[in-house]
């Protein structure tokens, strides 16, 4: 029997949602300061308006503390799902007011794409956008990549944040409390940020000949988008703008770092057995799938004869496979060229996007751990058929220590993997219904669902509204890995039909 949520349930959800909105609104201080320093008056006014909206909504929602009642699992999931709908809605205000979008829905699409670290964009005339607004788009990726709910948990939730933590699709808590895990994630991200800006800014200054201020600007924005596997870029031609193998290599380092789970970051930085982490099933699966998809892409590009030399093929092919597999979405070729990558090249890149990076990272997709466990299940199933009846089949695997592949875990892995496949097919179906070719519709759908951002041109300001809404939902569902969204739907159904 469905139990209808009572006033207290709504009060708890509202209270924590309000606190998260206040933390999210605090981030607006950064682009506001940027706009003031740059004397960008139109963005200043839109940032003040947005900060006001965040503040008022946050204060009103959190005005009644829940008292003795604690945040339970379903409350946390609902808060996480709502956060990821409301923050992009408010965060899209400065974008909508900029005059660079055809409609508020287009601006919402961009904000959702930013927060979910997807990187698809409907922004028009990016090359004349105010730097502070461009910074805000990239900061949304940083907030979403590290986890906006996690930031709030680190600040205020203390011991009650476990469900919020899991609601945002985090799967491992490598420190005793959620708050300390959250603080480590943000601390590690800030250290990476400083290092990344120095490295990328230096390359831009010394190798590309940019001015010091512009070098910092490019370094900062490309770091945000690279480490958070987001895919937005300061200029319209993505990473192809830089025409530099050195810059691409430096960017690739941060893309890979972003696709690594924060648990692995922690183990490599501080853990007593740091190198044993490389034995993890997830790490080895990622290495295997990267090798597989890169081989497919290289073979495909070689067959197509797109590049006339091996170094060209290796550089362009590897960068795009890395970008796809880490879920970043950077490109060095325009979408009009990517669309011509048919056959194995298309297969390699699309498969890399679909499989995704590591769990508890900023990457999207099915995730390497699930792929590894699914392969392990397949292997065990084959053994079961081939070996004698009395043979003992091991269900152990190594992931930060010896673990056992239980039936419940197997079920969860297969369920989420199947849901991802269904999501990929759903978007492709809508694209097909609007008359897009199968290959283009599937590519763009996988890109949106796996929060990648590589595009063959379907996601454009002229696309049908229903397809746009589908991609928005795919980005949201893909980022939250379904559970929090299903909890929200269940909560809504219970509110209407429960007793």
């Amino acid at each position, binding site marked *: 029997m469905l139990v209808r949520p009572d006033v207290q349930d709504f009060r708890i959800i509202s209270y924590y949602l309000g606190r998260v909105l206040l933390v999210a609104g605090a981030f607006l201080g950064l682009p506001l300061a940027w706009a003031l320093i740059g004397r*960008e*008056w*139109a963005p*200043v*006014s*839109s*940032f*003040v*308006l*947005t*900060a*006001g*909206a965040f*503040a*008022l909504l*946050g*204060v*009103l929602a959190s*005005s009644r503390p829940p008292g003795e009642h604690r945040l339970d699992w379903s409350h946390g999931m609902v808060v996480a799902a709502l956060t990821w709908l409301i923050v992009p809605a408010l965060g899209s205000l400065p974008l909508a*007011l900029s*005059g*660079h*979008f055809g409609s508020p829905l287009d601006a919402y699409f961009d904000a959702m794409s930013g927060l979910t670290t997807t990187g698809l964009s409907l*922004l*028009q*005339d*990016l*090359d*004349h*956008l*105010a*730097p502070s607004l461009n910074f805000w788009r990239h900061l949304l990726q940083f907030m979403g990549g590290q986890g906006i709910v996690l930031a709030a948990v680190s600040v205020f939730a203390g011991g009650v944040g476990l469900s919020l933590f899991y609601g945002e699709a985090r799967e491992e808590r490598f420190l005793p409390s959620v708050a300390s895990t959250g603080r480590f994630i943000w601390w590690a991200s800030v250290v990476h940020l400083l290092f990344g800006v120095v490295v990328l800014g230096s390359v831009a200054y010394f*190798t*590309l*000949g*940019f001015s010091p201020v*512009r070098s910092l600007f*490019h370094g900062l924005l490309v770091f945000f988008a690279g480490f958070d596997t987001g895919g937005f870029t300061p*200029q*319209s*031609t993505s990473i*192809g*703008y830089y*025409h530099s*193998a050195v810059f691409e290599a430096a960017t690739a380092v941060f893309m890979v770092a972003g696709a690594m789970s924060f648990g692995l970051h922690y183990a490599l930085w501080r853990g007593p057995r740091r190198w044993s982490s490389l034995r993890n099933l997830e790490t080895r699966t990622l290495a295997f799938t990267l090798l597989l998809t890169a081989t497919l892409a290289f073979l495909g590009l070689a067959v197509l004869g*797109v*590049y*006339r*030399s091996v*170094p*060209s093929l290796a*550089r*362009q092919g590897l960068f795009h496979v890395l970008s796809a597999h880490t879920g970043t979405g950077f490109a*060095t*070729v*325009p979408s*009009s*060229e990517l669309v011509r990558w048919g056959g194995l090249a298309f297969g390699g890149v699309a498969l890399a996007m679909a499989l995704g990076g590591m769990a508890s990272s900023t990457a999207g997709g099915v995730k390497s751990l699930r792929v590894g466990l699914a392969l392990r299940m397949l292997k065990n199933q084959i053994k079961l058929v081939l070996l004698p009846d009395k043979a003992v089949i091991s269900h152990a695997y190594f992931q930060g220590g010896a673990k056992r592949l239980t039936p419940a875990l197997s079920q969860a892995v297969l369920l989420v993997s199947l849901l991802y496949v269904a999501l990929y097919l759903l978007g492709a179906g809508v694209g097909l219904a609007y008359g897009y070719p199968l290959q283009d519709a599937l590519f763009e759908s996988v890109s949106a669902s796996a929060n990648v951002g590589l595009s063959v041109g379907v996601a454009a*300001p*002229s696309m049908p509204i229903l397809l746009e809404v589908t991609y928005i939902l795919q980005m949201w569902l893909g980022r939250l890995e379904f559970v929090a969204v299903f909890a929200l739907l269940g909560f809504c159904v219970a509110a209407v039909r429960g007793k």
Partner: protein
Amino acid sequence: MRRRSTRAWLLSLVVLWLAAPAATAGGSAFAAPAAVTVAELLADPTAYAGEAVVVRGELVGDFGERRDGTVWTQLNGDPYAEAPLLGGGSLAGANAGIGVRIPSEAWPGFDRPGGYRLRGPVVEATGVWRYHDPARGGESYLDVTDLELIHEPLALEEEMPWLPLLLGFGLLGAAAAVAVAKRRRAED
């Protein structure tokens, strides 16, 4: 006299004979480079590979002056180059740009590329379209030999929109009032 005219006639014939292959070959020394748009280059990049072309557009982003003496920037051939949004132009989709490499001898030394509140210099760039250049790891770009300024850079004005600003301060004030009231209620 007659022998001299025969010699001149023969000499002309030899010159024509030697010049003929160059004149009939693709990308001839005598034929004017084809004028193409950025959209055409992006739609069918192989058709112009290795060809001399003339492309018109706005220089945007950065002027990256590299150690080898070349300057790299981006040339946008979209409607915003002619009618910027802040100058009253309307939305016309995403930017359409290509990379351009300009040798120092052809670089006019522009001050600022196009960007926020600035329509950059609009130029006509003549050069060779390098498509998937093996010498540069498969990059595609226009290798410029000559750059002609068509329109000077244009500074664009943007007015302060007061309504969102006042509304924003109003919302912040209301949020502060609610927060203060909440605190007082808690203290009571």
